[in-house]
């Protein structure tokens, strides 16, 4: 069928192997957050946790700043990012609002039926 992804899409990240390689450390750290013990470790001492997974200084800075779009650009898969969101008290819609450059309330106001959360 030939190539399936043929061009950039505005305001859209496509998680391919190049991005996956860039984000390997971040995605490994996120995978660990699927364990309750590891989530506790992260909440207790996030700096030690990030160091244990060998995160680069710039990657650690993105997590400290809760810069979700920066983490996507650094190769974090969106579903891996949700695990950081969960461990830091940021649900999907909060993260999405930040990525859109809106407040949570502004984002909710753009939805069809905001009761379905």
């Amino acid at each position, binding site marked *: 069928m030939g190539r*399936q992804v043929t061009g950039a899409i505005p305001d859209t990240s496509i998680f391919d192997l190049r991005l*996956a390689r860039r984000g390997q450390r971040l995605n490994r750290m996120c*995978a660990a957050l699927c364990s309750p013990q590891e989530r506790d470790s992260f909440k207790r001492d996030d700096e030690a946790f990030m160091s244990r997974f060998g995160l680069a200084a710039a990657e650690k800075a993105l997590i400290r700043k809760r810069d979700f779009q920066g983490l996507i650009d650094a190769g974090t898969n969106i579903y*891996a990012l949700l695990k950081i969101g969960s461990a830091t008290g940021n649900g999907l819609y909060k993260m999405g609002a930040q990525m859109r450059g809106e407040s949570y309330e502004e984002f909710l106001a753009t939805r069809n039926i905001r009761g379905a959360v």
Partner: protein
Amino acid sequence: MGRIVGGLGLSHVPSIGPVVDRNRMQEPGWKPLFDAYVPVREWLVTIRPDVAIVVYNDHAADFSFDKYPTFALGVAEQYAIGDEGFGTRPLPAVRGDIDLSIHLAEALVYEHEFDLTLCQELAVEHGFLVPMNLCFPHDKDRWPVRAIPLQVNVIQHPLPTARRCYRLGQALGAAVQSFPGDTKVVVLGTGGMSHQLQGKRFGYMNEKFDQWFLDELERDPAGLAEITHQKIMEEAGAEAVELIMWLTMRGAVSPNARRLHRHYYAPMTTGMGLITFEG
């Protein structure tokens, strides 16, 4: 002999899980979705499937990107409830069908030449469990059907093509029919519809595309299977590419299968579609 008695295409939006667990299904924001499943559940009770084959994707929960299979089939007596980073939902473990799984693995690999990853240990998460919640109400200890997970990589490109997913469904349908046991099977194709979860385009939906997809899935699935990932992602959002899994379901039922139910509800960030076909 095995028999496909139905096919369902449906969204697996994760926020549905806690709504079920906290019994919030009658709240105004959620009622339209759950009401659409009332006739579907009645139909499922009538056709009495023994097994549900659930075509879904793992969202970096039990599979990691260090090793991420393109197609993976569960071959176990039981599947655990996974923790995808938000805790483990209070659900009974999923009963598998080991004889059918082994038959499907052998038929798909030998006869149909789909080289699957075969999983003897697999924990399932929202991609699998939300469709089960919507179709098959469980009690404290068990689900009313046995189930087999068929996992598809729809999150790390290169993904399998839509056409490959459709052909997998055709092979799956033939493999079920060559099973010697008297077993009735439904196939669930899950995910989508339009949504994007990152970038400035977060929250993007496209009802027009979603309704077109439902039309074509019913009318001309072979034609729809020629769609590229690029087109789906451009028109319906990057994460909408999950829709290729609906083509696996469609391939497993007859090309001229009768469509029974159809519904669409798009309250927040995802077009939640539902379509069913007779076997």
